């Protein structure tokens, strides 16, 4: 059996996933990172994207995260994500509707803050759709 390491996905509301993994790919700010057992300690910010987990028990899990932080230390990877949705659970129709809403908000936005917020929301739903495709 191949070597494994602990992987935890945590959101502010709860611990989403805690498994032994053979390899995890995280969407780092500066590019995707494939993390294998024994990876050097690293802290990275994440962009919108998909985390791919190859579980030690076999099988793969794909989870969409809307940014966050990843920390690898002591052969343990922790991802802190504010929003995480398993790719399989992304509802295309709903996401498209939300994307439309966000784009409308963006068009209506009057202040810079509102515009930035709407833009972030639009980007998020777009990225969700992209990875669900």
């Amino acid at each position, binding site marked *: 059996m191949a070597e494994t390491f602990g992987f*935890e996905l*945590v*959101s*502010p*509301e*709860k*611990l989403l996933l805690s498994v032994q993994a053979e390899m995890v790919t995280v969407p*780092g*700010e*500066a590019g995707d*990172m494939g993390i294998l057992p024994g990876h*050097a*300690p*690293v*802290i*990275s*910010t994440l962009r919108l994207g998909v985390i791919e987990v190859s579980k030690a028990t076999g099988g793969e899990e794909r989870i969409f995260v809307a940014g966050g*932080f990843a*920390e690898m*230390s*002591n052969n*343990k990877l*922790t991802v*802190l994500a*504010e929003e995480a949705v398993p790719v399989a659970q992304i509802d295309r129709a709903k996401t498209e509707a939300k994307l439309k809403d966000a784009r409308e908000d963006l068009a209506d936005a009057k202040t810079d*803050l509102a515009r930035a917020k709407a833009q972030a929301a639009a980007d998020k739903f777009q990225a969700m759709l992209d990875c669900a495709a």
Partner: protein
Amino acid sequence: MPSLKSLRIRINSVKSTQKITKAMKMVAASKLRRAQEAAEAARPYAERMGAMLGALASGQAGQDNAPRLLVGTGKSDVHLLVVATAERGLCGAFNSSIVKLARRQIEELTAQGKTVKILCVGKKGRDQLRRDHASKIVDTVDLSKVRRIGFTEAQEITDRVVAMFEAGEFDVATIFFNNFVSVISQVPSTTQLIPAQVGGEAAGAGEAAGGAIYEYEPEEGEILEKLLPRNLSVQVYRALLENAASEQGARMSAMDNATRNAGEMIKKLTTVYNRSRQAQITKELIEIISGAEAV
């Protein structure tokens, strides 16, 4: 001596009050369980965040270009107090104990010649603070529409606080909330939000977990700048959750007391009612008997 009828009405009214307080107690108990679960579920994130921040901040704190959220503005002239209370009353001393603590702090700070600004979260606190500190309240966050406190609410508050900080409206921010100890004990507490407090324990955990030097991607400073506002949200979120659990706990014990008091009242009233009923029967009997004897 109240009439029998008025006593009966009184007893019935106390009985229905008791029913209400009992129901409120049970509702609070079930809400408390949910709030406690939420508070527990939020713990891993907060812990990891603290550890990560500790590892990062220990390397950055001494530097000149460290983020302002971490080191502050270097002054402490203007204080922002975030006072988190409940949206509803009938929960014992829950709201007033936070307000009391906040008031004391306000007095202390004003005595030291500092300017105080208040951001109220929850309307009960605002109502109480408005009486003598109305001019200091800069804003109120209304959570009455929110049924379950989520991270988004915490983030909204944080966004507001950070925006104010960046506009230079204050130097130090502190949040006031009730720390949930148990159903019968909630301790009003404060946590300093800005400058960020990196606890010694969190920093220690970061070192223990790492033991080695981390690689950073992108740079340390950049990560820290992203991490700090998040950490702030986490702190606010934790405070809100603690508050929610405390509110339900306080309400539960307050309603328990109320139910018990109502029970005692009913008992007393019933005794009085029975006594006067018996007295009346006796009186009627005497009247009949003495009437019969007179014939």
